[in-house]
């Protein structure tokens, strides 16, 4: 006898409590579906008489549908943790609805990245289909017709806003969660959506800034230093140059300072758009992440390989368009390579000298990664000819990265598989930005999750609801602080803990990592205990 029979594998939405939908939820769902249906109908080139009106109806129906749904779920409940029935519901318990949603999202991403013409994107002339439906909004904001990315950006922002409100409602007893969610909603709407569109309006024939979401930092924004962007930054005078400098500073100066002070959460769960979607629309799937030690091992290999890949790719790309003549421009191929090698060596030397103990055997893998990069840099210098990097052209590296990591990993797998593998698959296994921030978080940051003495009952809520698949309980039950590179500081472990064991906080580096010999509660003579060892 077990709970298997409760898993709803049928198509019926009207199951047994607590997984059934009430009338309000059903009506709200219908309203949201109507909004989506309008978008779906437009795909088939049904020409709507008044595009602005129909687009507004559609987007409003989706938004109001989500608000209404949230109200119907949480409105009449007391404040507190709302995880009843999470594993019983088909949509959040890997049931049939989860698979359908996963497949639907995956198809959407494949079309978006590789077949935008099916969405109605026209290379020349008028857009059709769903993209045409978004033309009025795009013209209003950026002054140009919509692209598939505009459609995607609008829906993405809508999802973060709508499900952000739902999340706030769900965690209305928790001010950390509320503020964090308002923050991601703000950064998505302004920095990712409206500001870049308004920037487009500034462009003219001799002034052309590239599309730039300022909070999208290299290496997450892997294309930021590609030739066409750098060219247009430089050609746009002081403003363009300022943006370029900001792009460099954000990864080399701003990011390390903020990560030192607050941990990587300042970015991953307060600012980042990928994190924003994961924390709002992805929240119902956070418990699906794999907590096994095996998954952790895979994570470390994969995510750090992506860092190596993106570093090499970016270096090769920049190298490929730099010149050799110092009289033309101060930054040449050689100075650039030496610069990259110097930065990497400094970081590596600092870690090996000061932080070797904390890394233990991982240091070996770090050394391997470093060694690979340096060898390739040397290879670049001696073996590269005619734009080739070893056997590959820089362009080949770039396009494979864009395809494999930028499209397949972050989009298709990262979001498409939310309902199956959880909402942070990309952030955990793929995001090079998260890996770099995490590396710093582990070694040089004031952030940690403090464990409250001996109050842990090993219940497992923290681990289950950790979207990054960290086995939080493994630390908490030993009375150890949690200092893990992958932790994005979402704070949900502390929220769902029924015993008040966990607290995210910033504090001195000393004593941050604290393996304890005896849990608080047993009074033992520690000197005596130490002598025996």
């Amino acid at each position, binding site marked *: *006898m*077990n*709970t298997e029979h*409760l898993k709803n594998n049928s198509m019926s939405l009207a199951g*047994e*409590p*607590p997984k059934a939908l009430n009338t309000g939820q059903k009506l709200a769902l219908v309203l949201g579906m109507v909004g989506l249906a309008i978008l779906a109908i437009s795909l088939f080139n049904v020409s709507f008489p008044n595009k602005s009106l129909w687009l507004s109806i559609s987007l409003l129906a989706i938004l109001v549908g989500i608000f209404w749904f949230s109200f119907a779920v949480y409105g009449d409940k*007391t*404040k*507190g*943790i709302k995880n*009843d*029935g*999470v*594993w*019983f*519901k088909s949509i959040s318990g890997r049931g049939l609805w989860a698979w359908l949603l996963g497949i639907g999202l995956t198809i959407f991403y494949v079309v978006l990245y590789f077949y935008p013409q099916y969405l109605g994107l026209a290379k020349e002339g008028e857009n059709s289909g769903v993209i045409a439906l978004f033309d009025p909004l795009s013209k209003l904001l950026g002054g140009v017709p919509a692209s598939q990315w505009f459609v995607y950006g609008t829906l993405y922002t809508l999802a973060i806003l709508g499900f952000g409100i739902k999340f706030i409602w769900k965690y209305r*007893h*928790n*001010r*950390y969660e509320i*503020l964090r969610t308002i923050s991601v909603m703000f950064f998505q709407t302004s920095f990712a959506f409206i500001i870049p569109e308004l920037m487009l309006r500034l462009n003219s024939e001799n002034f052309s800034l590239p599309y730039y979401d300022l909070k999208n930092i290299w290496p997450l924004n892997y294309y930021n230093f590609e030739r066409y962007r750098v060219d247009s930054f430089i050609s746009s005078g002081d403003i363009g140059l300022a943006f370029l400098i900001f792009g460099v500073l954000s990864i080399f100066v701003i990011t390390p300072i903020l990560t030192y002070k607050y941990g990587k959460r300042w970015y991953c769960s307060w600012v980042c758009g990928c994190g924003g979607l994961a924390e709002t629309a992805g929240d119902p799937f956070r*418990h699906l992440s794999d907590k*096994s030690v095996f998954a952790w091992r895979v994570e470390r290999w994969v995510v750090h390989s992506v860092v190596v890949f993106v570093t090499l790719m970016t270096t090769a790309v920049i190298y490929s368009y730099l010149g050799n003549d110092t009289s033309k421009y101060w930054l040449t191929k050689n100075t650039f390579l030496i610069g990259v090698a110097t930065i990497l060596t400094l970081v590596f030397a600092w870690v090996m000298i000061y932080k070797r103990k904390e890394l233990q055997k991982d240091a070996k893998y770090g050394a391997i990664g470093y060694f690979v990069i340096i060898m390739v840099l040397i290879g670049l210098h001696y073996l590269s000819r005619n734009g080739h990097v070893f056997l590959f052209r820089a362009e080949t590296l770039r396009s494979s990265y864009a395809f494999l990591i930028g499209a397949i990993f972050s989009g298709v797998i990262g979001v498409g598989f939310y309902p199956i593998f959880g909402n942070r698959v990309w952030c955990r296994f793929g995001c090079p930005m998260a890996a770099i921030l995490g590396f710093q978080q582990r070694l040089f940051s004031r952030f940690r999750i*403090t464990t*409250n*003495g*001996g*109050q842990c*009952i*090993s*219940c*497992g*809520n923290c*681990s*289950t609801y950790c979207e990054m698949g960290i086995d939080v*309980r*493994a630390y908490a*039950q030993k009375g150890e602080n949690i200092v893990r590179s992958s932790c994005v500081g979402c*704070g949900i472990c*502390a*929220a*769902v803990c*029924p*015993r*008040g064991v966990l*607290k*995210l*906080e910033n504090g*001195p580096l*000393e*004593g941050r990592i604290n393996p304890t010999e*005896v*849990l*608080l*509660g*047993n*009074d*033992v003579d520690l000197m005596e205990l130490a002598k*025996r060892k």
Partner: protein
Amino acid sequence: MNHIVIIGNGIAGVTAARHIRKKSSDKITLVSSETEHFFSRTALMYVYMGHMEFGHLKPYEDWFWKKNDIDLLQDYVTAVDTDNKKVFLKTFNSLEYDKLIIATGSKSNKFGWPGQDLDGVQGLYSKQDLDLLETNAPNKNICRRAVIVGGGLIGIELVEMLRSREIPVTMLVREKSFWNVVLPKGESQMINEHIREHHIDLRLDTNLVEILADENGRVRAVTTDKSETIECNLVGLAPGVSPNIEFLKDSGIDLGKGVLVNRYLETNIPDIYAIGDCAEQREAIGNRKSVEAVWYTGRMMGEAVAHTVCGHKMPYNPGNWFNSAKFLDIEYQTYGWVFPESDKKGYEAHFHWRHPKERMCVTIAYHKDNKQLLGINTFGIRLRHQVVDRWLTEEIKIHLAMEHLRDANFDPEFYRNYESEIVAAFNSEFGTHIEPKRNNRKRILPRG
């Protein structure tokens, strides 16, 4: 190489096994009939509520036991032969041991109520109980009402579980206010209100008289001492637990309520130890009960006995008392001793603060004469264990605790804090002029 047999794979037995493995290469066998692997008993409720699947309750992955060379045996110990150092098993015949650790936990109390063994009447302690509840009360159509008997921690858990499936629940509580054998009045009162806020039919000062059966021998209703009959499909019995030691009756091991042990957790028979819920201290330690059926004490005894079994005698020496629980949405933590009115010591006085609207309150116990801090209960506010533990050990005065109250806060960042309100209430009650100081890391986490 010794063979150490541990009966029971709960938190006490498993902690003992882990710590023994850290210190020695003895052969360790963990015997349990309940489940193959260790799980967190206190989290069973979350499986029924759909927060977690049973697998999530296991703190260690299944490969852990083999990797650490701890043998698991799923079997039931029927008797112990102390002369021949053997335990008898239901299916595996028998097992010889060099050292034996008894960690068999508790069983649910039943007080001889008529009808207590009917179908549809159950407690909530084991994995089997959880499975049974899934059969007895899968949803609100099959279980149209449940009656929970007992106003303690398991009672309130059962209520919360059933409410998560929208099953109407009546709660019969013997006391005049919820859990007032442990909680002071103000706190108990707040929980009463919170229970009712969750649409639970709370009947205080009400005793179960009889459980009535239908024609199939299933529960159909209960009667109370208020001469009421309440129709129901499930009766949850939660009037506490007692040590699970019946199989030791004829073993020669000294038994009281539980297995009698000294401070080293040794029984009267050499090489036999008892830990956790089933152990009874021959002399109670301080204000503690002689049988402590709490997760934390089970774990602490497991840690202590491991040292002793491995040849470094270490007493079970619990420090300041602490515990925690959650009543529906309200978290509760306690440190030191805060007794309810019925048990209050002659020297004990209380300061109580309750938020005017939110479900939050604090009770601080102190010594009437010398003002020493004796204990703190908080509801809806988290405290930092380390800080309060140090206060209690250093026997600070309540005034200093008030001044440094912010050091003890453990609520998530950005939470509204109520120290100034609490201290203001204290000042007006005692005519003091304490200014709560800003929290200070140097005081919170002293080095060296």
